[in-house]
């Protein structure tokens, strides 16, 4: 089981963590909600839980709870620019189907 991220994503996470001046790393997760079943969670982490799995990607810790990991295994976190819009993208090989806007998905 593994989660990775691209250099672009790593660079942006480091920038945001530095700006925030606190935090262990970032949390990736999924939760059941939305118009098509599941949606992603992307948050700063101040306190990791004991059951969390931690993946060291370069200088950044990616923190995931074991349940989410089932849905996210093999995911690569990327940072992309689309025209004027920019942000993080989960490249998740487990996704079978997503809602029109891509904010929620099925596995």
């Amino acid at each position, binding site marked *: 089981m593994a989660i990775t991220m691209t250099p672009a994503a790593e660079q942006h996470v480091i920038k945001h963590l530095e700006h925030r001046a606190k935090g262990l790393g970032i949390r990736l997760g999924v939760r059941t*909600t939305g118009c098509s079943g599941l949606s992603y969670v992307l948050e*700063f982490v101040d306190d990791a839980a004991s059951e969390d799995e931690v993946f060291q990607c370069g200088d950044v810790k990616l923190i995931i709870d074991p349940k989410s990991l089932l849905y996210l295994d093999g995911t690569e976190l990327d940072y992309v620019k689309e025209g004027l819009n*920019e942000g993080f993208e989960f490249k998740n090989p487990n996704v079978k189907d997503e809602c029109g*806007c891509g904010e929620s998905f099925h596995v």
Partner: protein
Amino acid sequence: MALLQISEPGQSPQPHQRRHAVGIDLGTTNSLVATVRSGMAEVLADEQGRDLLPSVVHYVAEGVSCVGYEAAEHNVADPLNTLASVKRLMGRGVADIKTFGSQLPYEFADDKGGMPKIKTAAGLVSPIQVSTEILRKLAGRAEIAFDSELDGAVITVPAYFDEAQRQATKDAATLAGIKVLRLLNEPTAAAIAYGLDEAQKDGGAKETKGQDRTVAIYDLGGGTFDISILRLSKGVFEVLATGGDSALGGDDFDHAIADWLRQQIGMDDDLNPIEQRILLETAKSAKEELTDSAEVALEVLDWQGILTRELMHSLIDGLIAKTMRACKKSLRDAGVAQDQIDDVILVGGSTRTPRVGEKVAELFGTQPLCSLDPDQVVAMGAALQAEVLVGNKSGDDMLLLDVIPLSLGIETMGGLIEKIIHRNTTIPVAKAQEFTTFKDGQTAMAIHVLQGERELASDCRSLARFELRGIPPMVAGAAKIRVSYQVDADGLLSVTARELTSNVESRIEVKPSYGLGEEEITNMLQDSFSHARDDMQARALREQQVEADRMIEDLLAAIYKDGEALLDAEERQCLKVAIQELRELRESTTEHRLLARQIESVAKASEEFAARRMDASIKTALAGQTLDEIEKG
């Protein structure tokens, strides 16, 4: 898929629940729009990567021709129809314009509402309409960046803006279809951008925790200078004093250097516009280069020479000294000593000149904050505030309050002012006071709403007048008339007067004497309705174009992959012709229905091909499998 931002722990938004808010710095010379991404305020650039939008709108006979950089290019050729610096006119009356309008090259018309309008090729245009165009452009930029509609905006205004000017700004935003979350004072926004409100609450350093902080904001733009002294206590920003010079800015530095160049070259005072422009541009780039180097070699109009940093200082020190005098005056007004200032913030592109920072540090005895881009800092602070107000950041992390800058009062007998809400009261606020009749049998009362600190009504600014009628006739002093002043979170005032025995009531929204009239607002809204159809059609066309592009791309890919195998030459040719026709129509037509029909006919033409592809892929999938295996699978 949708692009995500990092949230605070436990605050990931539900899908489709993230609300998009921006901060807008609607400036005299340039405007900006910023938003918060992953907890950081960022300015949104346009497609060319430019952060600023010149606050310029160009008009032609048909209406608005362009906004921003494009509009600014018309400045030389078509100055009367190229409107810039309208912020100076916002919420002003015709009388005000007479005093300083001569600095602006436009032709003014006296409208019946008392609000000045500018004569352009497109007819009479109010400063509010010009601001609307600028705001619309910025909101459009944000909507493209979010790929979503805007849920609201915080728009900044100078701390010295009065009710009329704030109302004018808010009207402009409403006409642009922007929901105004709040108007925010520019110096307050700068302080938020540096997190001073947080520092005061959390106490970055222990000894300052919970203590009041006094902050000076030194804002030197291209053409204006503002100094504001704020006091920050318990998350509330109080404006202690404001001052400045509306006709002094970094452009004057350029003029001073250009003038020196002219003397060096030995030219007369009467330069032609081209020479003047060359000198100014040389001066400007020399000033910018001297930010990093000690001297710069110049070559202009057959003249060569060297400008050292010291020499430049001697040219601009006089101008900087003028700003220092304004700072000292504001400190005196605020009743604060120089060494009581805890933080100084530099705002405005012209504070990049290192000499300015040096002098400011000298005056206040503290190193000014300048780590954020001085052009962007106000928009960034507004974005941070918008993020809270729109509800993306939960809790009362940053419940920021503003205060009213000037007392609000009512004219009483003898032309005096009775203050109802005192200056520096935090908003929103509502206060009431009782008055009575002056004469026996008096049935009406004129209510004159005033703003200002002076004692005589004639020295204060008149905001509105209205009458309370239908007071039952009584002896003088028997009627009880309760006048309530209410200021909402944007600093906008409504006044109600009620006679308590009979309950007759009269009220007014301020509606400053030169704000937009009801009728004018209705007309403008009507305009936006009458254009609704055009807007809808433009949208429908755009949708069909996207659909056409998708279909062309899909079909070409399918033909490339399976065309040889599944289609004969004639069928292939037929489809290619259909695609070509669709492509041509997509480029040429403005009629979305036509395009929709063509898309449908291409879809029909390719139905057979699609069916064959489906069959072929099922065959491949099923090849070599028994019925049992398929049923199990």
